[in-house]
């Protein structure tokens, strides 16, 4: 503990400045504004520099947390980013979207008695600082190994795998189905949580180290995995879990009903919020209902508000405690005026002339805890009621996209269509083909996808250097 720290500063974390809720609910600028160098140094000074830093265990990619925080405390921001980049390829992204409260910060020793160190905010600060000052860890590319590796999908799993392998001197080609690289980072997570210029900046680094990104390339259609394996020495599949689920209730195909993926893709990837300057339209509801309680639902509802909806609400069948979204996101949504219809489940969507008019819901009660330990909701008989809305967004989860598995011979899948891999290596049922991220685990997190990409990179490297 540093002497010049009062007890007070140790206990409470340095708050991060945020855009005023009343203002931000109508713009797409970032909500959290980031630390100034002074704030960062102040926050960094709270870290106890534990001998046995549990925070690192909580980080799926094992960033040397106390070390980089020490560098920030000393005002040596370049050193800080250098340390982070030894472990992470997307610090500006993770510092923003990682569920830190469940990972590094959850384990923080300081967190036992007081608020944990704001590891995520500090990581973000170091990354942004490096970006603004255009330095940071310049990656030296070693002698080419002569091995060629194909990466399918440019989400966090694929990007990380590419980065790690390129740093070892392999020649990497990424195949991406969409016209921009980044996966969910560009089509799903909204601008106000993760500005697209940041993703672009991080991806640009890959170009600088010689990674080739081929966009508009749907593997399974334009080229198959089997053809890839003829041309490349190994392959990593990181195609994500992007297949939207619907509820199968009446009225789901009415105009004005979206999957969260469609709504967010229109808004983010296609920039429909700038329609008609950008050509892709989107329905701006007057009253918008988003069904679901996860991060995706929060992103959709907050996007709907920003597009100009007068009212936007979450319809969720359990109570606030069970909501899988990050506390911070729920809080932000609440501050922005999002309404919450909790313990409520939609039973059908009612239309008029082909357009959504209302959603009929039923109230729910929480029963006994189920297998997952969450109390399962039970419908209350006779409690049906209608909520008038003109846009409904369904955010109840996604599944595995079948295009790639269907076109690949002998790739073992589980019964839900996810690729089966070896825990340790990411190796699939086929030699030389590895996989990781959401296509293996189902929808998870950015950092877990990165962790999987990194693990697979290591295994691919070992595999290639031994054949």
């Amino acid at each position, binding site marked *: 503990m540093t002497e010049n720290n009062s007890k007070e500063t140790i206990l409470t974390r340095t708050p991060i400045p945020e855009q005023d809720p009343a203002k931000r609910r109508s713009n797409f600028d970032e909500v959290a504004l980031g630390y100034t160098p002074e704030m960062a140094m102040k926050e960094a000074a709270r870290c106890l520099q534990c001998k046995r830093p549990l925070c690192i265990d909580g980080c799926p990619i094992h960033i040397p947390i106390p070390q980089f925080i020490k560098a920030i405390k000393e005002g040596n921001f370049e050193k800080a980013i250098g340390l982070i980049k030894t472990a992470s390829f997307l610090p500006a992204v993770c510092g923003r979207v990682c569920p830190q409260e469940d990972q590094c910060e959850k384990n923080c020793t300081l967190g036992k008695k007081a608020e944990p160190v704001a590891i995520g905010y500090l990581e973000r600060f170091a990354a942004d600082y490096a970006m603004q000052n255009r330095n940071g860890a310049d990656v030296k590319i070693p002698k080419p190994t002569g091995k060629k590796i194909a990466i399918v999908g440019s989400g966090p799993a694929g990007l990380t795998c590419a980065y790690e392998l390129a740093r070892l001197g392999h020649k990497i080609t990424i195949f991406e189905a969409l016209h921009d690289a980044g996966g969910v980072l560009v089509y799903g997570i909204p601008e106000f949580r993760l500005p697209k210029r940041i993703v672009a900046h991080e991806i640009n680094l890959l170009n600088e180290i010689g990674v080739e990104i081929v966009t508009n390339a749907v593997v399974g259609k334009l080229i198959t995995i089997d053809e890839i394996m003829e041309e490349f020495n190994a392959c990593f599949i990181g195609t994500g879990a*992007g297949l939207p689920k619907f509820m199968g209730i009446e009225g789901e195909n009415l105009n004005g009903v979206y999957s969260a993926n469609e709504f967010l893709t229109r808004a983010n990837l*296609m920039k429909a919020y700038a329609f008609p300057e950008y*050509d892709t339209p989107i329905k701006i509801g007057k009253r918008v209902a988003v069904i679901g309680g996860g991060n995706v639902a929060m992103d959709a509802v907050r996007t709907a508000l920003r597009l100009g909806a007068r009212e936007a609400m979450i319809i969720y069948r359990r109570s606030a405690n069970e909501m899988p979204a990050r506390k911070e996101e729920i809080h932000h949504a609440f501050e922005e005026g999002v309404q919450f219809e909790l313990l409520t489940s939609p039973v059908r969507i009612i239309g008029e002339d082909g357009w959504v008019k209302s959603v009929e819901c039923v109230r729910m009660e929480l029963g006994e805890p189920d297998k997952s330990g969450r109390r399962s909701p039970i419908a209350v008989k006779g409690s049906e009621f209608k909520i008038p809305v003109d846009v409904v967004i369904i955010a109840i989860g996604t599944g595995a996209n079948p295009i790639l598995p269907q076109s690949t011979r002998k790739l073992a899948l589980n019964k839900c269509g996810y690729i089966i891999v070896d825990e340790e290596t990411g190796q699939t049922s086929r030699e030389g083909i590895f996989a990781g991220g959401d296509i293996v685990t189902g929808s998870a997190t950015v950092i877990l996808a990165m962790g999987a990409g990194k693990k697979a990179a290591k295994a691919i490297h070992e595999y290639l250097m031994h054949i």
Partner: protein
Amino acid sequence: MAKILEKRLIRYPDVFYYRINAPLISRKAKPGQFVIIRLHERGERIPLSLADINSEEGTISLIVMAVGKTTTEMSTFNVGDEILDICGPLGQPTHIQKYGRVILVGGGFGVAPLYPIAMSLKEMGNEIVVIMGARSKDLLIYENEMRAVCDKVLITTDDGSKGIKGVVTTALKQELEQSSANIVMAVGPAVMMKYVSETTRPFGIKTVVSLNSIMIDGTGMCGGCRVSVGGKTRFACTDGPDFDGHQVDWDILINRQKTYINEERGSFEAWKKRHVFAICE
């Protein structure tokens, strides 16, 4: 980036033929599939069917009818210009086999994607009848191409200026009454495909239609293209675009196609204004 190698006006003033350099796509593409293009940074993604595939030259052909903002803007693209993004081939190819006697029904620009299908069917030794319809004789496209491949060509025009006076279903019904068919395939506006399916239903003849719902990614990620077939939700971009016409819920498809009518009109008007401006300057 895909360069336009050839452009032709095939029907005044709004239907254009493009031959585009796309070697990788041409290598894989099959009749019945489509591509999604984005003209420029601000553009939307729109699906267009393959009207011809030439893997030796590494080109694909598209036939585009200028109906709104994006297709009209595309009509201003000329030989040498580049289309920013072209993604494909998407969708399942049309199932080609030896059926026997096949009736193809094309409405509007729908005749164009039927052309590569007709060629493949012919190679498999099928007897092909094509019924092509338009409002009036000047609006017909691809007649000569179709005549070169098909065994019988029936033309219908609403105003009777050529062929049979009436709509495609008039000719289809006559044809089915006179001599049968093993399968019917229809490509064109949803309403036309709906009535084609209604016409063949009493005859119990399998009818394959190519559904044109609104799309974005074309990879099964957004669900925007969903259609209801046989009571189940299917994605036109990955499960289709070909489906059994007798199972399609046409009203849902036709309704969903109108989702952005107001927005589309506004955006087109704004574009036209900007565009006229550019010409005046």
